[in-house]
């Protein structure tokens, strides 16, 4: 096939072009470029542009909360969750048995993405769309209490329809029924409960048990090898409990006292780091001898490393939840509700709990779980017994002003 080819330029033409670009009037001198770019920059960076900006108040700029529900004609749903938060097949890691069973039964296909690594980052990611009243592309998200509370406060999530949630309504464990930020669970249902406990590495502590936050803060044997969590509510909450205060009902002064107590330990170099999820590897290696940790992680660590121990402080411990929410403008709300309800049936709930090892928020799972894994069914970190339930405390929800002030104080504590 013959292709069109432009007439080749003669050497003279080429030379002329080069000359023109380098020396002619078309050439780019530094001066002319500078002039042009300053003009442009001034036009762009004008003060008017500055004052035209601004961030609208949360929750006010949006139009309709719900979009048309396309659940009936589009049999699918997009579900954003944390990593390691869903059971996978032992033989094939790409298969998720409970989700597959859900699809088989209902015909609803699930696009499952593990794109949540951190609450604050995830909030940063979805905030622009939600603030602008646009779709996030997600039908179901899973976030921790305080962020769920914030999303509800801003009006960025949809009210759930109890008619579609018969199992969830009946089987939700009483412990989780009435958080102060969503009484009666109108907007959210827990995916898992998270217990914050004290964990230690027996090898690193010399066989010693670590049983209280006081010991973490003061025991000279642990100096420089103590870890606390970078989640303000876990670290300050556990400290408040240790001081005999109730994290569900405390004052500014109590908070400041807890921060001061932690600060003392930081100043003494007792505390090594404030960590997110990465404390697990430090603890397993023994670089951190004792720390606050999340029970689900500890169950998994113990399975690999017999040196890891945990203790529930006598005064109590902090429980939080990761919650399922349907963001505004989600296209498949009813499908999402069906998925929530499905995970409140004992059978799928047991399968999930057996795999992820966090506190199961569903009542009546013990028998189903015992059939899969006897140890798990007897583990109070997965199905809390009466004593565990009694010791459980939740961190009260904060007003926006408190939240900013407390996070600021906590940020000063975790790094100067």
């Amino acid at each position, binding site marked *: 096939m013959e292709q069109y080819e432009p007439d080749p330029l003669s*050497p*003279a*033409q*080429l*030379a*002329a072009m*080069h*000359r023109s*670009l*380098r*020396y002619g*009037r*078309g*050439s*780019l001198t530094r001066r002319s470029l500078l002039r*042009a*770019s300053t003009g*442009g*920059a001034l036009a*762009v*960076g004008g003060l008017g*542009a*500055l*004052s035209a*900006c*601004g*961030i*609208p*108040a*949360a929750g*006010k700029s949006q139009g309709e909360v719900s979009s048309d529900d396309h659940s009936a004609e589009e049999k699918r749903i997009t579900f954003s969750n944390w990593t390691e938060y869903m059971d996978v097949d032992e033989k094939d890691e790409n298969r998720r048995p409970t989700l597959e069973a859900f699809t088989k039964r209902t015909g609803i296909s699930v696009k499952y993405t593990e794109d949540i690594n951190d609450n*604050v*980052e995830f909030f*940063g990611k979805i905030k622009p769309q939600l603030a602008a009243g646009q779709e996030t592309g997600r039908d179901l998200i899973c976030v921790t209490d305080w962020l769920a509370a914030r999303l509800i*406060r*801003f009006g960025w999530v949809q009210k759930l329809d109890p008619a579609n949630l018969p199992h969830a309504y009946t089987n939700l464990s009483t412990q989780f029924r009435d958080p102060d930020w969503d009484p009666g669970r109108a907007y959210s249902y827990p995916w898992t409960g998270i217990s914050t406990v004290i964990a230690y590495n027996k090898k690193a502590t010399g066989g010693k048990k670590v049983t209280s936050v006081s010991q973490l803060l003061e025991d000279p044997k642990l*100096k*420089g*090898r103590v870890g606390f969590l970078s989640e303000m509510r876990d670290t300050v909450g556990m400290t408040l409990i240790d001081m005999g205060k109730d994290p569900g009902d405390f004052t500014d002064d109590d908070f400041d006292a807890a921060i001061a107590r932690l600060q003392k330990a*930081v100043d003494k*170099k007792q505390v*090594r*780091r*404030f960590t997110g999820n*990465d404390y697990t*590897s*430090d603890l397993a*290696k*023994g*670089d951190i001898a004792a720390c606050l940790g999340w029970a689900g992680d500890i169950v998994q660590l113990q399975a690999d490393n017999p040196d890891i121990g945990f203790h529930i402080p006598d005064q109590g411990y902090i429980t939080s939840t990761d919650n399922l929410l349907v963001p505004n403008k989600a296209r498949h709300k009813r499908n999402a509700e069906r998925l929530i309800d499905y995970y409140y049936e004992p059978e799928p709930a047991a399968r999930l709990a057996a795999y992820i090892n966090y506190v199961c928020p569903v009542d009546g799972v013990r028998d189903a779980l015992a059939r899969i894994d006897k140890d798990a069914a007897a583990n109070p970190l997965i199905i809390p017994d009466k004593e565990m339930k009694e010791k459980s405390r939740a961190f009260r929800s904060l007003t*926006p002003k408190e*939240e*900013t002030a407390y*996070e*600021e104080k906590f*940020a000063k*504590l*975790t*790094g*100067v």
Partner: protein
Amino acid sequence: MTTTLTEAPPTKEPEDPAPRKPRKRGRLVPYWLLLPGLLWLVVFFALPLVYQASTSVQTGSLEEGFKVTWHFATYWDALTAYWPQFLRSVLYAGAATVLCLLLGYPLAYLIAFRAGRWRNIILVLVIAPFFTSFLIRTLAWKTILADGGPVVGALNSLHVLDVTSWLGVTADDRVLATPLAVICGLTYNFLPFMILPLYTSLERIDGRLHEAAGDLYAKPSTTFRKVTFPLSMPGVVSGTLLTFIPAVGDYVNADLLGSTDTRMVGNVIQTQFLRVLDYPTAAALSFILMAAILFMVTFYIRKSGTEDLV
């Protein structure tokens, strides 16, 4: 090829046979060529910058929204509250840059003059760490520097850690969660940015200059001092800039390898933006950092007297 063409002196070329194009159009050609780059710069640099500048003079909260109130005091408040972190960032990044230069120069020299047929392989090895993620590479340092690990054990028995403790960069016979670990992480992560520009400018030095220096009875050390090093200055300047600038703003190393007393300004900005939700302070801190870097870099380039980088 192209160089010879463009370098041809204009006087020796035959006369331009084609009629001249209209002047205006000719004049605009370079700007059209610049357009894609300029658009990119406006959309992804200038506009965000304006947006951040605006944010930094706003007041409000996420609940009530933020409004431009020309509240310049935010800058002063941010600076007085967080100057230690600024200072620390500059110190850590400076230390890492110096270490990078000390480690990188001999290696770049070796690759440029002595590596022979190994040159390409060594160059690939320099870049190889970039094939894995930044995060993984930094986390690997936690294993390397682990408290009970061989590195810390060796340093302890050689009493190196006594010296570093005395300097105040380590504590309690450990390296992790100390300033030293952060500096090590920064050095490691930005080393290739130092080596590559050094290599390009060393490689360009004409080998005959060395011979000439030898012929003039210069000792190898004198040759290096009087010939090689001055000629590699562009590489040194651009290498140090490419290392220092990203290192000042880095927060991953301080987060993963550091402790409570090693927070850098990047960590502060991250916390203010994501956790405290104080967007104006975060934006003001970013601008202060930018201004500080610009100031230092201008001063540095003036001092080093190099106009053309690379």
